[in-house]
């Protein structure tokens, strides 16, 4: 009690073992000083999110002690945590889409005037906070119309509105553009200046260096080290996180082939509500070429993909693969082609969490001769092949019978990548292939994509992560509001800033302004 009053959060010797036996934290020590930005880093599955969930009362700890401002606490629910001045912005936003911004912020903490809600007083307070920290928002707009960045600002406003003094942000920049990230960081700096304490969960080293005061590294559920950011280097943090040095990126061989594998020609796609989401899009990909589409999510990426794979019928335009017109093909037919497709929605489209690894592997191949004896599915053979894939792709799992849902995000993504690449594709479509995935898996998946390219596959890469687009692509298409506003060779002259301007504004010659 009160041993060190400077520590606003102190977690001692924390253990968290989930009922299914997963050990998420085993002996974590974590201290945060008042008024600092403290980065909590580690690979996926290192236990960052779990630790914060325990702190926030979302999960019950197995063992250990938590002190807030020197007082021992044991939150049983987030409500208790909020009452003691904590707030958390989750990776997935928890907003009601049909409510307005103001309603969302006030939800659960409405000001009352007799039996009515005092919307005016609520709004006054919101505006005050909004101005103070530069968190702009249109309070009367329904949330479903907002961009991802704006939604995140709403989440932060909500936390501040609830009088939180300690704010936990779980991977806040995963969905933001560089400009939006910079704005977020400005707001965070203002908050810290005002006495707020911020815990930032991330696995992006660059951000740690940019903004944090201290950094705690977790690995395999244990605290590896807590460092002052000013006294460390990115390389040191990386090697602490993964426990080894990164391998160099695979060599890229310049493609010689001129054969066009995939072509999209004046494609227009409407979403299910009838809004035009892809506008007059044309591009083509040659053998051994990676075509990257950069863009903020929600600018037509998913409609483009759905039209290609047969989930949506395009309004007009053509799609060609290997010289064949595949416009409007059914998904079943599409999946029979040697085309690998890594969807952006890992947990819904990409895998079936409540089925085993083996069952996930054979979704496209189970009707092939290899596993099929009349109506009889040869599970023995399936399992054997699955074990081979698990070994080849370094997937961490007990066995091929383990449920995919019990595995970490990076490993689930590896299962998907393994399945799609084992089709030996001559076209690989990869959507956000490394979103929310740990560093080792990113490294691995990137190398696999480059390997496919070097083998002569055409690759369509769609990503909101500019470093990924710039690191892998041969050509970059910049997507803004359903249009490819520019296509550029990826040479040394391309900068992240330039791309950022295109995908935020649709053009180059203008400063970034808020929408």
């Amino acid at each position, binding site marked *: 009690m009160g041993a060190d009053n400077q520590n606003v959060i102190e977690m001692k010797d924390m253990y968290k073992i989930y009922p*299914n036996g997963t050990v998420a934290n085993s002996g974590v020590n974590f201290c945060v000083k008042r008024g600092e930005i403290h980065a909590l880093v580690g690979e996926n599955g290192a236990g960052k999110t779990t630790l914060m969930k325990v702190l926030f009362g979302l999960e019950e700890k197995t063992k250990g002690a938590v002190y807030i401002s020197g007082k021992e606490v044991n939150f049983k629910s987030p409500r208790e945590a909020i009452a003691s001045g904590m707030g958390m912005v989750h990776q997935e936003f928890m907003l009601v889409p049909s409510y307005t911004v103001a309603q969302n912020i006030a939800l659960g903490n409405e000001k009352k005037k007799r039996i009515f809600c005092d919307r005016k007083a609520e709004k006054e307070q919101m505006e005050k906070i909004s101005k103070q920290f530069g968190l702009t928002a249109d309070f009367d707009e329904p949330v479903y119309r907002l961009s991802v960045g704006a939604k995140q600002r709403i989440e932060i406003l909500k936390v501040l509105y609830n009088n939180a003094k300690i704010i936990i942000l779980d991977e806040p920049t995963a969905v933001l553009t560089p400009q939006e990230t910079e704005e977020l960081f400005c707001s965070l700096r203002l908050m810290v200046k005002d006495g707020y304490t911020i815990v930032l969960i991330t696995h992006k080293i660059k951000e740690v260096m940019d903004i944090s005061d201290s950094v705690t590294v977790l690995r395999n559920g244990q605290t590896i080290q807590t460092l002052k950011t000013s006294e460390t280097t990115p390389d040191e943090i990386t090697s602490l996180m993964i426990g080894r040095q990164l391998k160099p990126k695979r060599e890229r061989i310049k493609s010689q082939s001129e054969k066009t594998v995939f072509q999209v020609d004046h494609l227009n796609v409407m979403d299910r509500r009838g809004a035009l989401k892809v506008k007059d899009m044309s591009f083509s990909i040659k053998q051994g070429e990676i075509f990257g589409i950069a863009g903020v999510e929600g600018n037509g990426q998913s409609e483009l993909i759905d039209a290609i794979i047969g989930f949506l019928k395009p309004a007009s335009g053509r799609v060609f693969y290997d010289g064949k017109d595949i416009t409007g093909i059914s998904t079943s037919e599409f*999946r029979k082609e040697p085309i690998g497709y890594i*969807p952006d929605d890992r947990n*819904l489209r990409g895998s*079936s969490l409540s*089925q085993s690894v083996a*069952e996930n592997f054979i*979704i*496209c191949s189970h009707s092939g001769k290899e596993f099929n004896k009349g109506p*009889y599915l040869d599970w023995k053979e399936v399992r054997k092949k699955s074990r081979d894939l698990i070994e080849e792709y370094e997937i961490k799992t007990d066995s091929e019978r383990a449920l995919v849902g019990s595995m970490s995000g990076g490993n689930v993504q590896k299962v998907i990548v393994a399945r799609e690449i084992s089709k030996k594709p001559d076209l690989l479509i990869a959507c956000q292939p490394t979103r929310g995935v740990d560093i080792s898996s990113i490294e691995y998946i990137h190398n696999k994509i480059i390997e496919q390219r070097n083998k002569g596959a055409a690759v369509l890469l769609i990503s909101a992560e500019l470093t990924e687009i710039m690191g892998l692509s041969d050509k970059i298409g910049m997507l803004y509001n359903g249009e490819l506003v520019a296509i550029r060779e990826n040479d040394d002259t391309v900068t992240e800033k330039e791309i950022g301007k295109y995908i935020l504004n649709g053009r180059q010659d203008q400063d970034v302004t808020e929408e």
Partner: protein
Amino acid sequence: MKQKLKNTNLLSTVLSIVIAVLLGCLLILLVSDEPFLAIKSLLVLPLSNAFYMNNIIDKVTPLILVGLSASVAFKTGIFNMGVQGQFYIGAFVAAIAGNYLIGLPTGLHIAAVFLTAVGGGVLYATAAGALKAYFNINEVVTTLMLNYIATLVTSGMTNSYFRDPDSGGVIRMHYIPEYLELKEISTKVTAHSGFLIALVMVGFVYFLMKHSVLGYRMETVGKNRVFAQYGGLNIKRITLICFAISGGLSGLAGSVEVLGMHRSFFDNFASGMGGDGLIIALLASNHPLGVLLISFFFAYLKVGGQIMQQNTDVSRELVLIIQVIMIMLISSRMLTPYLNKRKFAKEVKKSG
């Protein structure tokens, strides 16, 4: 890990059953003047002689089939609430075919009765399936509505056109010719041979779900529709096939009841059958062997309830109470987290 969790699941099912039975006994103690005779009649007497045991087998036969029917649908993520209606259609068609296809050679007639009855169930279920597959109409609503239609139409027909004039106060059709009846299994096991059909169907569903390509597809659709669709499975076709198999099993159950037990179609003769099927599938976690076991337990309780009602002042509705408690305990999975926690606490201790 999966294996371990399955075991605690099984354990929690067994525990739920035990708790439900104990609570049932407690209720008997509270309401009855002769509680010990009542408990004995309910739990011990059904296994005390061959007559009662055969009675159990007779009762278990349709339960297995409707339980399988529901479990196949549930496994595919389809809530076929229409087991009852499909059962009645199967039974009704079997009775009609049995009575009015007279003149066919015996073997052909038997085959025709089964085929038409199963076909009736298939078509009746597939109607709801088509609405779901092509127009995305919720199958819960359509199948429940179709239940009313099946119950009322068969009842109306049996009351009017097809009623046996010699049936006295009972509303039923003519009795089917004797050669169509499902005979006793043997001189000792006097239950009708529909039981054997049910056992064959347990094997069939087991093979279907565990070892066939179709079973893999059905399960994948049930576990994650979007994944299945993205993986290139033809969801419409799988939905239709699933409805067909489920409806066929219900139809078969109906025909087996008519041919083995009642020898005619009685007006509204098995009103709880569909509900029992759904509950059995639920309690069995849709596993065919689980369906077999739970069906036996249900049949045992039904027979026990009858004996208890004959012997004592406790009515057989008590069995319903026990069933309901079981359903609450199991479907809310109230015991599973508790058991898991204990198990892992032990393991953590062991591993230090």
